């Protein structure tokens, strides 16, 4: 069946200007209600050579290089069923369009959670997988790749394929689930996912430390890393006014356990600076703000990654250069080597023809070089299409780029799935 047939059946409709991706407007939208319908849609798109993109809630639509082409945007919102929650096995199987928050609500009565906490409140499971989204608790639980145990994907030609399964321990066949983590819709559509779950912690305790500058931040995190403490998250925030910042250390588990750990952490951090254990009300507030991304209204934003022990140096590099581009707030998963920073410019304040534009682009490139010298990387996670073209969103892909391209060619030989958006122009 062609696109016209599917249009008649209501599976595909004209986009009418909705959901432009970096200014590229899709011609059609599809909202499949089953994996089979998704397969039909992709078969039809293949038959007519349409370029296809995928969307969950749309929160990550701006991630990646501008698409070279986009004819059809497949939206997963109608794939919203939690298919199976095997509480005794700590496993859940769900469709890709289920919102993470809804899944957590469904798991809560069993005292369980999917241990992923990306900051986007509307994020869908498929989107979290495709964008490899993570949050502060990755320190304890890892990222999508550590929790995703099974996957169903729809390939460019409509083939439906599964890998992994419903058991956590499983080495049968290749681990395609990992391959799809962070693949940003360039290999196929994530249709169903199976995750391992964790018990939801019964109690939490928070210790905070005022941080004067990069050196002290590095010292504090190193002290934690050298101890036997097991925090769920170690978050550093620096607001748009600059230093001092604040380190928030979260312990989760059972009451006697988190209390003992918080007391030990307060003592340990007290040797570095002004440490305080949060009271009950403060704990709630600290947890609700934990990991909030600082760039909702910013013109552009960056994600820096670096070896965790390089925290102080990376902070000095990045925040030292802030004057050049009018720095905004910073939020870091300080013990894992991930740092998010926003431009101080508001959305729309960096027209491509302004004199500030080349300066901003240059400062990003320079920051990328400085980080590279520390073994780190810089990704432009938000920005105008013009800025993305000026600095390359992902940075250098490394010597595996050729191999990545060959993987892409095997999965999508006609190069129709989100062409150009990914690393190295994939």
């Amino acid at each position: 069946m062609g696109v016209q047939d599917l249009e008649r059946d209501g599976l595909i409709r004209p986009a009418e200007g909705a959901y432009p991706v970096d200014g590229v407007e899709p011609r059609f939208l599809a909202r499949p209600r089953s994996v089979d319908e998704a397969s039909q849609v992709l078969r039809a798109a293949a038959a007519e050579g349409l370029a296809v993109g995928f969307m969950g809630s749309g929160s990550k639509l701006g991630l990646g290089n501008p698409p070279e082409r986009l004819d059809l945007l497949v939206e997963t919102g109608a794939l919203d069923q939690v298919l199976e929650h095997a509480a005794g096995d700590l496993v859940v199987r769900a469709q890709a369009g289920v919102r993470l928050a809804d899944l957590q609500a469904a798991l809560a009565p069993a005292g369980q959670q999917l241990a992923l906490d990306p900051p986007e409140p509307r994020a869908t499971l498929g989107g979290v997988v495709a964008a490899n989204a993570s949050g502060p608790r990755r320190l304890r639980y890892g990222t999508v790749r550590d929790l995703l145990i099974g996957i169903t994907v729809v390939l460019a030609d409509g083939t439906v394929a599964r890998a992994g399964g419903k058991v956590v321990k499983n080495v049968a066949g290749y681990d395609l689930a990992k391959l799809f983590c962070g693949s940003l819709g360039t290999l196929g559509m994530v249709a169903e996912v199976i995750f391992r779950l964790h018990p939801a912690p019964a109690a939490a305790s928070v210790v905070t430390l005022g941080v004067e500058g990069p050196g002290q931040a590095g010292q504090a995190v190193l002290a934690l890393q050298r101890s036997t403490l097991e925090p769920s998250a170690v978050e550093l925030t620096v607001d748009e006014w600059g230093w001092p910042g604040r380190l928030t250390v979260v312990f989760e588990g059972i009451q006697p356990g988190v209390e003992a750990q918080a007391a030990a952490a307060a003592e340990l951090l007290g040797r570095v600076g002004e440490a305080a254990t949060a009271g009950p009300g403060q704990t709630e507030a600290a947890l609700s703000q934990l990991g909030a991304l600082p760039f909702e209204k910013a013109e552009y934003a960056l994600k820096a990654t670096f070896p965790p022990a390089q925290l102080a140096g990376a902070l000095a590099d990045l925040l030292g250069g802030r004057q050049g581009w009018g720095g905004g707030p910073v939020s870091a998963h300080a013990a894992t080597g991930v740092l998010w920073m926003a431009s101080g410019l508001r959305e729309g304040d960096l027209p491509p023809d302004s004199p500030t534009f080349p300066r901003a682009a240059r400062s990003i490139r320079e920051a990328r070089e400085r980080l590279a010298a520390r073994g780190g990387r810089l990704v432009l996670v938000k920005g105008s299409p013009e800025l993305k073209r000026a600095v390359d969103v992902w940075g250098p892909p490394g010597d595996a780029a050729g191999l990545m391209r060959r993987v892409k060619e095997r999965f999508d030989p006609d190069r129709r799935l989100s062409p150009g958006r990914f690393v190295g122009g994939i």
Partner: protein
Amino acid sequence: MDRQALIRRLEEIVGPQGVISERNQLRTYECDGLANFRVIPSLVVLPETADQVQGTVKACHDAGVPFVARGSGTGLSGGALPVSDGVLIVLARMRRVLDVDLENRRAVVEPGVLNLQVTKEVAPEGLYYAPDPSSQQVCSIGGNVAENSGGAHCLKYGFTTNHVTALEVVLPDGELVHLGGDGRSPDPPGYDLLGAFVGSEGTLGITTTVTLRLLRKPEAVRTLLAAFESTDHAGDAVSRIIGAGIVPAAIEMMDALAMEAAEAAVHVHYPEGAGACLVVELDGPAAEVAHQFEEVERHCQEAGSTTIQIAEDDDQRALFWKGRKSAFAAVGRISPDYYVQDGVIPRTALPEVLRKINQMADERGLRVANVFHAGDGNLHPLVLYDGSVEGQEERAEELAAEILFTCLEHGGSITGEHGVGFDKKQYLPRQFSAEDLDTMQLVRCAFDPDGRSNPGKVFPTPRLCGERPGPRRVHPVEQAGLAEVF
């Protein structure tokens, strides 16, 4: 290229001592830990550096010769079984620990480094390497990477794939690439080829450098050995513990026959007459462990545990573990031959599946000793038989297969940590559809279009890489009359 020319080229790369071509010496390498299958390779090469591995693979590529990588040869699925017309590349001489980065908690090692060696190396700093397969004293890190090895503690800490952060890999055409970036910075942009490579059982290339995540030794560790009347009772205890939201570092179960064997070998002093026992270990911050350990004890008692022994010190803990970890070998004391299986089921299906296994064993007049990672539903039924008795080996093999099918019926997997290898490749299509396998094959073709890296493993009958799934198309090579399709 003929064999002699290949030998000459390989000798130029690794030196004459690094190439084995004499048939009697080649025989040493005819099988891995699964001795049921034996193939003498055409040549064995023992490289000492990444350059030599790369040179060897290039030489194989140029000669159109397949190759198989081998670490310590402890694998239990025939994954390192040689191919008769191919080169076996043995990485056992690559045993250097290249770097330990204490601040970022990473170790960079060569593939021949033994699993336990990593922990020994960093233990003085209070660090360790978490994955602990039972063979950890002798198995190599490179082999662990190929198999995505697990171990008793992966219930809490995950598998090899969760602890490898970067790899240097020689692709089947000899290209050297780095997967996972430098292994120190998180979230390297691009496809997670590292994730695809770990557990690919040697079919995507050979790793020459492995970056491992190190963990800080937990503040407290507590271990108990609880005996039960039956595996049902022990299974009930496991359900209660997990249901209470406790994630132990490990929960291991042994049935009466497995205990009998282990007792004969290492004298753990299992309570007499017990039908099953659990080894439960908790680790982490002291206050949390102390509290939850009491809970675990209570759950065991409520599930009807007859006796509970608590490890008083590291020596006793080591003894509990020795009993468990030596169970496979110990079974050799009570049966002339045995067949190890590695099925996985959802943990909650444990009692039902165990009953089915025992029933199937009875029907065939065979005994099965059960050892398993009860926390994650990974069963290791040991099918006992006597190869000298006519027909027993066949019946044992049949039973071993039936056990796997039972696992699949319960939504499980044919392998939890031993790999598909040569042994179980014919069962893979029972777990995955043709579309699933064709999709996995896309990855294979991207890495190894000629299918020369460990051919004949994992997948039963892979398509030619030029073939696309769906309507049959003529492969260009075929069209040119260069290849036949079988």
